[in-house]
């Protein structure tokens, strides 16, 4: 017999480079980038912190910290010029603006143009300010417009959500005279390369807005070159291809659907998810989307579902591990809320990192002079950097999930012996007989069981007992004519071991008899010695009626009495008065 061969414990492909538990970063994946900031081959980590700071890490230290004007939503790195050295621009999206920094200095600001106003809403506000409509009517009209599908301005939303009349009046007065605009905000931002598939090739920004539009800017980030309208607000973008050649924008939206824009057209393929998306990635022909139900679904770009990866905890972030220079590997990194960071190649898990602080932001790329580094920002602000071993085996174990190879190895079954053959022959010929014997034995077994059961029920009811390993005999007699009687009880231990801890109790009808003792603590009963105990019983009934007195001998370990006896009392003589 061959035992299944256990796989040797594999070394983790991750090398621990650095951990800063007090980095105090607040950032998710869109606000982290690994970038060659000076074009000198030394990659740095830029983090747009939610505390409005643009932080740059090099090696193991924070080298610069700039103040941001607003809370960042997303940060991207673009190359806007072809000159050498290749110095990128850092684009930080916050609110409706994209702030572009060059060499970490503010350089340019792009603002998303305001959305055209809905006519109904504009009318309401004109009437409200002119006094033709009071506030309650205006709110009703606005609610009706909202329910009718109009996307309201923040001003209208504020008015509807304010409850008190005086506060509403104050709001309306504060806005009097200010023009009504519908300013949307940026929800996500990514970069598409223009015409060369290289890391430092010219690139353009792609913005997703709250109003459900996707905007593609030109290389300089000044004008909008293309605009798409989606049915819902995009929250994650995954981009492949080149803008001038062929491209595909995959947008995960807040309505739980994934839309695809292919070469300037919104494609008809829509993936409808079972839960809200919480992460989006592209690996080759697959769209990988992490959903809130602790699962990562893989869809083919044409919209057909390929497979699902089920996680033990909710997903915090996903990221693609992509190695191109040395070897071509693409894998998926999934960070979970239980602190695990899992590495998947296709459907099989390759490695797991356990972190004290679950990573909510993750970027894989070059850091320092190392090509394969993973930067992670934890929920509590920890910054961890891991590096991938050069010789790490990232091949999926190959074996597709299915029956193990041991299944095909025949078992070592011994040859049929003569004894075995004879036994089978006998079984074949005398089957009836064997069955009858079996049935008879079964009946006997049932009978024995029933007897044992009856014994359990009747134990302790007689004058002699064998329960709980003790065998004690009790004999009882009555002396006297009445009204005073004496119960004489003889106890004898019939076993061969002393018995301890026995108690004797008496029970009688208290209307007829008065017992002088109710409980007797019995001494140690030595084998075959007779012990005598007495109990005085007085008849208190005037007519001298007789009844029974019950005697029980009990142990504290069993609910069933060891022995019991019933003493029938004789009729009592009545005391003659006078």
């Amino acid at each position, binding site marked *: 017999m061959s035992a299944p061969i256990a796989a040797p414990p594999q070394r983790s492909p991750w*090398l621990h480079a*650095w951990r800063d538990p007090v980095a105090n970063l607040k950032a998710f994946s869109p606000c982290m980038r690994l970038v060659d900031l000076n074009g000198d081959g030394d990659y740095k980590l830029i983090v747009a912190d939610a505390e409005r700071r643009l932080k740059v890490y090099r*090696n*193991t230290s924070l080298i610069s910290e700039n103040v941001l004007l607003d809370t960042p939503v997303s940060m991207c790195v673009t190359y806007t010029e072809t000159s050498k050295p290749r110095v990128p621009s850092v684009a930080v999206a916050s609110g409706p603006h994209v702030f572009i920094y060059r060499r970490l200095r503010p350089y340019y600001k792009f603002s998303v143009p305001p959305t055209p106003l809905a006519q109904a809403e504009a009318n309401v506000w004109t009437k409200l300010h002119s006094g033709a409509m009071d506030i309650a009517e205006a709110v009703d009209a606005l609610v009706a417009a909202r329910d009718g599908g109009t996307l309201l301005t923040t001003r209208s939303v504020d008015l509807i959500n304010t409850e008190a009349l005086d506060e509403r009046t104050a709001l309306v007065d504060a806005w009097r005279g200010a023009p009504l605009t519908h300013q949307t905000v940026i929800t996500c931002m990514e970069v598409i390369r223009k015409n060369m598939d290289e890391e430092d090739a010219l690139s353009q920004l792609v913005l997703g807005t709250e109003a459900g539009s996707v905007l593609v800017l030109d290389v300089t980030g000044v004008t909008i070159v293309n605009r798409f309208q989606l049915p819902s607000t995009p929250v994650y973008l995954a981009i492949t291809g080149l803008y001038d050649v062929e491209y595909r924008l995959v947008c995960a939206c807040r309505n739980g659907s994934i839309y695809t824009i292919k070469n300037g057209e919104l494609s008809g393929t829509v993936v409808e998810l079972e839960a809200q998306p919480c992460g989006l990635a592209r690996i080759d022909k697959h769209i990988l989307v992490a959903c809130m139900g602790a699962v990562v679904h893989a869809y083919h770009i044409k919209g057909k579902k390929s497979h699902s990866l089920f996680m033990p905890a909710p997903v915090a972030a996903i990221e693609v591990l992509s190695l191109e*220079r040395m070897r071509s590997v693409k894998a998926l990194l999934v960070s979970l809320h239980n602190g695990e960071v899992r590495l998947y190649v296709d459907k099989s898990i390759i490695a797991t990192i356990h972190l004290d602080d679950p990573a909510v932001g993750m970027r894989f790329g070059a850091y*320092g002079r190392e090509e394969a580094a993973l930067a992670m920002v934890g929920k509590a602000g920890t910054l961890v950097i891991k*590096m991938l071993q*050069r010789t790490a085996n990232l091949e999926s174990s190959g074996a597709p999930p299915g029956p193990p190879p041991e299944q095909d190895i025949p078992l070592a079954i011994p040859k049929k012996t003569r004894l075995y053959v004879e036994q089978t022959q006998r079984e074949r010929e005398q089957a009836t007989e064997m069955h009858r014997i079996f049935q008879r034995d079964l009946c006997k077994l049932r009978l024995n069981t029933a007897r044992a059961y009856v014994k359990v029920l009747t134990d302790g009811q007689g004058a002699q007992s064998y329960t709980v390993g003790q065998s004690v005999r009790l004999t009882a007699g009555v002396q006297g004519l009445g009204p005073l009687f004496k119960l004489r009880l003889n106890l004898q231990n019939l076993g061969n071991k002393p018995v301890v801890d026995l108690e004797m109790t008496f029970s009688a009808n208290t209307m007829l008899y008065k017992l002088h003792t109710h409980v007797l603590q019995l001494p140690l009963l030595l084998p075959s010695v007779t012990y005598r105990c007495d109990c005085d019983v007085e008849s208190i009934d005037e007519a001298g009626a007789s009844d029974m007195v019950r005697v029980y001998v009990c142990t504290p370990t069993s609910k069933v009495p060891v022995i019991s006896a019933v003493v029938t009392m004789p009729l009592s003589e009545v005391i003659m008065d006078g």
Partner: protein
Amino acid sequence: MGLFSGLFGKLGVSKKKVKVLCVGLDNSGKSSIINQLKPKKTAATELVPTVGFAVEEFAKNNLNFTVFDMSGQGRYRSLWEHYYKDVTGIMFVVDSTDKIRMCVAKDELDTLLAHADVRNVPILFLANKMDLPLAMTPVDCVAVMELDRITDKPWHISATNAMTGDGLDEALTWLADQMSRSIRY
């Protein structure tokens, strides 16, 4: 000339030849160190990242060194193992300012030490770039790379500066001493 060299060879005066492998991560200063060791007139003025490997020869400490200057770039690191077999000494250069990649250097060293072809040769660790402000001391390098685990080979660590040559002579003297011992027997 041939007569003289043959004569010196017989008398044991001529310098012995040793082969040394120089490894380390990219940008740690391997080529700079070797450049510094070469005679002034043959030294290059400007260095570019080594591609594949380079072979340099120079005389030092009464030995003729043949140094295989391996490229430290990730894609060429797999070439190192082909030279383990026939070298008499190994120089492992560490960039002591590159704290973040100490784990990578340690991993490469572990791979080197675990390789079957690495014989009982002396290993010289050079904690290079000691002049830079954030450089780790050799003691720190020993701790981070867990060099104290190496018990089966003679090893030595020195802080060096490949730009000025500080610390190199002392380090090379140790290596030459170790190698000449092993050659003699």
